[in-house]
């Protein structure tokens, strides 16, 4: 068994670019708890928070630490971007790519990629150029590719932002399956409905700061801060 990555600890962590603070300083301790949803209005710093947890945005101050050394932790994570990054290869090659990177034998990698392809309902399209898929299919492909190494933690940055209803439903089903396999999921969204459907824990952000961090039942019924109350009521936060 791989050693557990959680808890994830952020201490005074912030990201600044050209003198502007995008997010932080943030103090946060996160345990593996099913699906953690990061909420907040546009520009609240949700994306930046996810990127600094994952380690693709360099910290300006503070630290992000996992229960295991950084190199071990990085190998156990995956990230799905808002606009899926699709390699200019076939669907199957996209899925097998992360496995090739870790030196898995070609046959085994292909076997797993085929399985993943079937899981997202793209059987029969293995040889199709992935760049020609529809938006929803691309996002499903990106999600399946992120899950193919069985990561302990999966980050998703507004994965359903540009998708229609059926695609959103399929993505959410895939996420619930991953949750059952004990993958810790940290995902941002600004859809309150989606957060209610999926969240076990909610992190609420506003203007780059962490405003509220509570179990979803508490957050949606008795929000503790005026900002969260206003956001849930549908007000515009400034």
């Amino acid at each position, binding site marked *: 068994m791989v050693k557990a990555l959680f808890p994830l600890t952020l201490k005074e962590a912030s990201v600044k670019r050209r003198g502007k603070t995008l997010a932080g300083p943030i103090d946060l301790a996160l345990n593996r708890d099913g699906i953690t949803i990061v909420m907040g209005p546009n520009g609240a710093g949700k994306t930046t928070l996810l990127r600094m947890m994952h380690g693709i945005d360099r910290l300006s101050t503070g630290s992000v630490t996992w229960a295991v050394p950084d190199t071990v932790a990085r190998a156990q994570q*995956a990230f799905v971007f808002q606009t899926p*990054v699709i390699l*200019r*290869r076939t669907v199957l090659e996209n899925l097998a*790519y*992360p496995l090739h*990177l870790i030196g898995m034998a070609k046959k085994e990698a292909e076997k797993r990629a085929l399985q993943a392809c079937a899981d997202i309902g793209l059987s029969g399209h293995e040889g199709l*150029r992935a*760049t020609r898929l529809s938006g929803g299919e691309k996002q499903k492909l990106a999600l399946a590719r992120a899950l193919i190494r069985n990561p302990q933690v999966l980050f998703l940055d507004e994965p359903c932002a540009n998708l229609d209803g059926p695609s959103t439903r399929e993505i959410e089903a895939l996420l619930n399956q991953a949750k059952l396999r004990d993958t810790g999921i940290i995902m941002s969204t600004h859809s309150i409905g989606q957060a209610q459907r999926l969240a076990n824990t909610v992190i609420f952000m506003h203007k780059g700061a962490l405003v509220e961090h509570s179990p979803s039942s508490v957050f949606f019924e008795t929000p503790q801060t005026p900002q969260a109350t206003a956001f849930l009521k549908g007000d515009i936060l400034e």
Partner: protein
Amino acid sequence: MGDIWEGLRAAAWLLISFDADLYEITLRSLRVTVSALFISCLIAMPLGALLVLRRFWARRFVIAMLNALMGLPPVVVGLVVYLMLSRSGPFGVLNLLFTPTAMIIAQVVIITPLIASITHQALRDLWSEYHDLLISLNTSLGQRVRTLLWDGRRNLLTAALAGFGRAIGEVGAIMVVGGNIDHATRVLTTAIALETGKGDFAMALGLGMVLIGLAVTVNLTIHWLTGTERAGRW
């Protein structure tokens, strides 16, 4: 006008009659250029990818230099390679001057900056597309280079074809370092220059037609083989 018609007729005859000299010269042209192109691609394409992926202090300078060197005057390259390879030069002991190898060296110097520069521009766009994913997947530098080169291969083909075009049509440098020696270092371009000087326009035109035909054929073949510009390709 008479000269041209006469020349074209003679040229056609040279081609149909499988003129031995013509075929020898053509094959040597191809051998020199393809060798130079192969070596240049081995140097220039990883270099172009590294310039995209690595941030080092002289990076901007190297890129600016490569762009400037794309317009390198071939005759000057020939002169420098000549001085290096001549008896009194640092590599004189290798006895390479006036051999096809010397011509390959000169062509490598001429087309490497061109290929590296086009590679850099093509892969820069691809990298901005792939950046987040490849960082997220924890790829090593080598894996990034290989991914960019493989997924950008269609653009790299353009770079290689540009290099081929410049090398096959080049005359100044290989004339200086090769010497246009019959049955040794004579290639299409140097032969055309010589025959024109001699006033043998038939041979010159024949060679010219072969040269153009060669360049077009190679380009068309590669485009056909790789299916670029076909619907639905990336």
